[in-house]
């Protein structure tokens, strides 16, 4: 039936997908923002509720990780600016972004090991509890972002609207995660 055939026209689907993917990401960002607002509000209330709050020196590797994550946002933007005639280059920059994401996660794991080496475990003190909770929760979201990249890299071979839709959504989420991490680092630095 012609109507059906026309309705499955890929152009229409791509255009709609572009909008829904971005809307979906923004809605998810609203929810994640709210969740981390809850976590960090809890931190502030918990700090004021007991006399067991002890200063905790943040592992130095966190600052390096921050640079890596910010650099990954930069490489992602370079990838996004490549036009359709330069898909191989786009993929290379996406691979680099993905690799930087992995390096960031590796750095976070290193930070957890450094804290463990100091005898600071999840339940040792409220400070260490919040450190692990906030960083692990953020890392889980980064894992989600990396999964998005796998999808986006596969989509670089799709028609341009598909590619743009996926990349726009993945990039919006990834930049948000970078911003979220800077916020968390500031909270950790000032409060722990």
């Amino acid at each position: 039936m012609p109507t059906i055939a026309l309705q499955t026209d890929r152009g229409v689907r791509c255009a709609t997908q572009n909008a829904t993917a971005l809307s979906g990401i923004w809605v998810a960002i609203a929810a994640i923002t709210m969740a981390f607002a809850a976590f960090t509000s809890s931190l502030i209330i918990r700090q004021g509720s007991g006399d067991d709050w002890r200063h905790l020196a943040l592992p130095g590797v966190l600052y390096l990780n921050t640079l890596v994550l910010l650099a990954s946002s930069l490489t992602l933007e370079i990838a996004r600016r490549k036009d359709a005639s330069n898909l191989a280059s786009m993929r290379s920059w996406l691979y680099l972004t993905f690799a930087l994401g992995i390096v960031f996660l590796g750095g976070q794991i290193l930070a957890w090991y450094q804290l463990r080496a100091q005898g600071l475990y999840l339940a040792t003190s409220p400070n260490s509890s919040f450190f692990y909770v906030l960083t692990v929760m953020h890392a889980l979201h980064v894992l989600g972002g990396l999964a998005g990249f796998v999808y986006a890299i596969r989509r670089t071979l799709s028609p341009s609207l598909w590619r743009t839709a996926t990349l726009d959504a993945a990039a919006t989420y990834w930049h948000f995660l970078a911003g979220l991490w800077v916020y968390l680092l500031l909270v950790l630095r000032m409060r722990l």
Partner: protein
Amino acid sequence: MSDASAPVVHQHAPPTSFIRKWVFSLDHKVIGKQYYGLALISVFLGMILSWLMRFHLVWTNAAIPGLQLISKNGAPGGVMTPEYYLSLLTMHGTLMVFFVLTNAPFAGFGNYFLPIQVGAEDMAFPRFNMMSFWVTFLAFLVLMTSFVIPDGPPISGWTAYAPLSAVGKDAGPGLAWGQTLWAISIGLFCVGQLLGSLNFIATTLDLRTKGMTLSRLPISTWAWFITSCIGLLAFAVLLPACVLLILDRVAGTSFFIPAGLVISDRLQPHAGGSPLLWQHLFWFFGHPEVYIAIVPAVGIVSHILMASMRKPLLSVKVVYSSMIAIGFLSYMVWGHHMFLSGMNPFSGLVFSFPTLVITIPATIITMIWIGSVYGANLRFHTPCLFSLGFISVFVAGGVSGFFLAQPSLDIQLHGTYFVVGHFHMVMGVAAIFGILAGSYFWFPKMSGRMMNDTLGKLHFWITFIGVYCIFMPFHYLGLAGNVRRYSSFVNDYLQPLLPLHKFITIAAFITGAAQFIFLFNLIYSRFKGAPAPANPWDATSLEWSTTSPPPFDNFGGRHVVVYHGPNEYGVNGAHGDFIMQDSSEPAPEPVPGD
């Protein structure tokens, strides 16, 4: 069709296997029915739990045959222990609030009808949609597991107040594994609802068909959209709260457990936590949750009332603006649940004010309903009766909220049956009436068959009178000082109130039994009901312009274009006193003399 604003088509082919068609389906209609079915199981389970509690309250030492088979420790010889009473209380509240009042009006009906009402062929993210149901179902299974483990269900209530909920088995039965299962279950439930809300918002924003502007959205879609915005932000806070609670329970952290806490002669190995923190996090979710239950019902009832009155509400825009105002204010009032928690008295005042303010949009909606119904030629079918019943119980339950919003009165009433009466009427019963109205209204569309109207009316009248007999006396009991959460009232000053409790228990049994009339009607009509036409109620919105039940892609390959608003009743239409949204006939004119 080259119009880029056209809706997305099914991105998945119609499934053929049983598993993909009925179990792990991506079709929003099947998912909606799955949610509805889960809510149906939960509501009958929750109701039976309330029967057991009501029985125990008035015949405290009588054995309930078979109860010992469910819990040997909780009901030795069939006689419930006080602790097991609290376990059932917890499970009743959790099942009803989460798995019934959230699942049925929002996730159930919303999933089924939101995409059709906006003219889409599915949700924006069908896979997430499927995941949202199955995560919710997993949450249900995890919760139910607490019935079969030796520890039993938790005793800390559906609000799981810390430190009771956080310290573990020293604090009583159900607080070892039972409470952990509860926290995991609610955490999973949050994930399911977040995925659902994500879909509802993206679908409403992006998948509206050509001509379906925001102002042409049916009022029910507005309600689901607003609810999904409320739910998105509320469940996003409850989820972290559950994570922290689980860590306190299994990892030895001290988020909610204070220092020096001695329970069962044992010093708890925690320090410095804040029990109030749990209450803040929980009620930041908990109060919006009230509106997650009631706003969809408000939308459903408004939707049905217009089809029953054959005219639009006095102002539909004011109704949905009021719903938005309620949603916004719902985040500013959580502290009114905590007047007794020991927080700063000035904070109580701060929370009391917006609580009183929130009654203004609620009153505006109610006044619009009453003003619209006045003088209307109502079609008194069962959905209409339940809609009118909704207004009645919503007002009756809401009025007591004025008293409870004031800290000076709440301090006296908070721990009594007055509060129980208030929230059961305004949240529980009102939302259930919305669900029942929606069930009778949309059953023909969902099943292709009509429900029996005589049985429906019988169900309505018994239920309507019954809920007043049960819950209005609660207010009197509260004023008389009847504390809540007690498992029995023997040998103390509450004994004179026992005859009233007996009356309530008998009313609860009769009203509960009437719900089996509904269940029978539902099942019987599904197979033997009269075949339903496409538009049995002469309604205008898009779900009525497709077959009953709708085909897999909702409109049978037809690309729907919307020409009219959803409230064109009382006009000269080609098919009667209404014009359907996708009808290309000219703009309506008012019926002369109307």
